[in-house]
């Protein structure tokens, strides 16, 4: 197994764990945690491809990962703000109970 394959498999496993978390947990914050984990798995892929790709001096993969980190931070901030807002409104963070369109 080449290093790149190993990193890709690790990233795939991490993505699957994050997906499982996002799909199975009740708490909205833990759903967000799962999504963050999936984003991170993608970052690992980008960095691994940058490192073992034919043109590491082009920096594209690394740049993509850095931008992705910044976007993930923004996503977390807004997502958690929404969770807090929903909790204030509906007094729950259970995604199974958030099934109404009306406030």
């Amino acid at each position, binding site marked *: 197994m080449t290093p790149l394959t190993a990193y890709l498999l*690790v990233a795939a496993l991490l993505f699957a764990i994050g997906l499982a978390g996002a799909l199975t947990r009740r708490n909205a914050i833990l759903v967000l945690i799962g999504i963050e984990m999936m984003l991170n798995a993608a970052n690992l892929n980008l*960095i691994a491809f940058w490192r073992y790709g034919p043109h590491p001096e082009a920096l594209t993969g690394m740049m993509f990962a850095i931008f992705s980190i910044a976007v993930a931070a923004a996503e977390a901030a*807004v997502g958690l703000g929404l969770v807090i807002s929903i909790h204030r409104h509906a007094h729950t963070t259970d995604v199974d109970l958030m099934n109404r369109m009306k406030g």
Partner: protein
Amino acid sequence: MGFVFYVIVALTLAGALAAVLLKNTVHCALALTVAFAGLALQFLELDAQFAGFAQILVYVGAVAILVVFAILLTRGSETPKDGVFSRTWLAGLAIAAAVFAVLGWAVLGSAQALPGPGGARTAPPTVTVLQIGNALMSRYVLPLEIVALLLTAALIGAVMVAMHEKAGTQ
């Protein structure tokens, strides 16, 4: 694939699994931090120093703290009565397993076509922070500006969304 690689991978995956499986939400957030730190170590292992430190700074320093704050503000640390997993957990698990199976099949199936060192490990690319800065300010200046705009919008948006609703506006 040295010993260090396996230790870091084990740390990352253990943290990720704990973050998904543990009952107490705060424990999940702390386990998530371990997973993030493990990923940062993998970035360092891949000679991406800047990305690794940025990962620690953003995820361990900011996102993890944000998550625990949100948990405490929403009383999320109290274990709910009807279990922590959704009613449809089996379907979710099946989907995740299927996704992993497809991804793993794709990766292993294309292992021959992937670029990578056949035998000898390639020399690590020497990327200085200066090069990253120059690239950010020349070739990637448009994405940089867009990210700046996005972060500003997210900052204002998060504050607006989480702010107390004034009485009578509903």
